[in-house]
């Protein structure tokens, strides 16, 4: 019965369907009745939920149920890309000031009274396990993780207030630029430069503008190097 409704609302795609069923379970609209040994559901409430929520809002609401620290980790990861290094997420979180972390949160999260005093590194340990168990992201190798679906990454990105996205991306780029060593910067050059460029309009320090201009030149030359040879 529920499958029919899922199909009707074009939700019968594997991952979103699983997440939707989980959200029904979390909200006690779907439960396993031990007495009759069957799953039972409140079809009117499910229909209501289908009418008001799409995949994106289901995912956003699901992410919002996590602690603020976990949400911040997910938001930073969403900016780094579909695949990301957890140690890089940790470096970024460690270097964001409390005021910057606060700007990451929307007024809705503030209204919910979500607070987080835990140091970011220990948040990551618990957050990554928590998110992995829910299928929101998965471990690919030692330090490399990836979002379970591009819609999850998009939902995590949508948690960042729209007006702060560019400045936040620029700030992450600047942190990476300051903290990454030369080899790491070279292998992440395009990502770092693209992030820094998001906030280039707000960079007033001439020295920083010159450094970023040089990095843009380096990135452009590197792209050219992939597809062409020298001009001689």
């Amino acid at each position, binding site marked *: 019965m529920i499958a029919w409704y899922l199909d009707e609302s074009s939700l019968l795609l594997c991952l979103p369907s699983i997440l939707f069923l989980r959200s029904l379970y979390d909200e006690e609209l779907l439960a396993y009745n031990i007495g009759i040994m069957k799953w039972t559901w409140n079809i009117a409430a499910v229909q209501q939920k289908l009418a008001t929520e799409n995949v994106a809002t289901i995912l956003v609401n699901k992410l919002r149920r996590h602690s603020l620290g976990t949400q911040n980790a997910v938001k930073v990861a969403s900016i780094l890309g579909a695949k990301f290094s957890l140690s890089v997420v940790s470096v970024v979180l460690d270097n964001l000031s409390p005021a910057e972390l606060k700007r990451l949160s929307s007024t809705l999260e503030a209204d919910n009274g979500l607070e987080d005093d835990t140091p970011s590194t220990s948040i990551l340990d618990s957050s990554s396990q928590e998110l992995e168990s829910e299928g929101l992201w998965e471990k690919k190798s030692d330090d490399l993780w990836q979002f379970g679906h591009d819609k999850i990454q998009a939902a995590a990105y949508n948690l960042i207030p729209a007006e702060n996205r560019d400045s936040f991306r620029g700030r992450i780029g600047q942190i990476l630029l300051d903290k990454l060593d030369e080899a790491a910067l070279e292998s992440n050059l*395009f990502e770092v*430069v693209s992030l820094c*460029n998001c906030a*280039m309009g707000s*960079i007033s320090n*001439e020295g920083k*503008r*010159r450094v*970023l*201009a*040089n990095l*843009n*030149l380096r*990135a*452009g*030359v590197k*792209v*050219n190097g*992939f*597809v*062409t040879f020298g*001009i*001689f």
Partner: protein
Amino acid sequence: MQKASDNAAFDSATTYFQAGRELLGPNGWNTDPSVMLKLHSKGANACFISGHLDTMNELIGEVLSQDIPVTDKFEVYVVKIKAAYALVENHVAIDTAFEFRSKLGLPTFKNKPVNSFVIIKEFIKTKRTLGSRKAEDIASLPELTDGRIMMGQRMLELASTSCFSVSEQWLVTILVRHFLLTHYFSFCAGPANIVPIDCIYPGESIT
């Protein structure tokens, strides 16, 4: 498929070069002239390949208007010639190549129809210079290191592409001159050096 992906790559290169120019602003020519020059020259090349010809022309124009050594303008001259050839403006390409050679202070031609007499004159000049040397002797010449001459040779190579479209005689003259200069100044790594000798001297043996 590969071509499409290359063009997409050049699109993103264009974006980086543009961001760099915006960051330095017009004052960049005073504060970081070498970075500014590279952002414009390489940006013009990326714009040419990705098909943003208006931006390419703006960038070329800006570099050419700067009071900098002509050798620094080499890259934009190359882009300008390639673009003219792509747009089937062969005479513009030839004129541009000759203009650059002349600014370098190297001997050059005037872009006007070539008669057989000119070809024979160039041929005799080359033949005399070569003496009894064989192809192996030419190939074993030391590699050219003088940047100014290399740029001049590259201009002849680029001009020869357009000459081929304009007139066969022009092509032969350019190739003979290129070969002569190659011998005179030593070996210059480049596409024109791998042109088969038979193309330069049809039916003739080099010895």
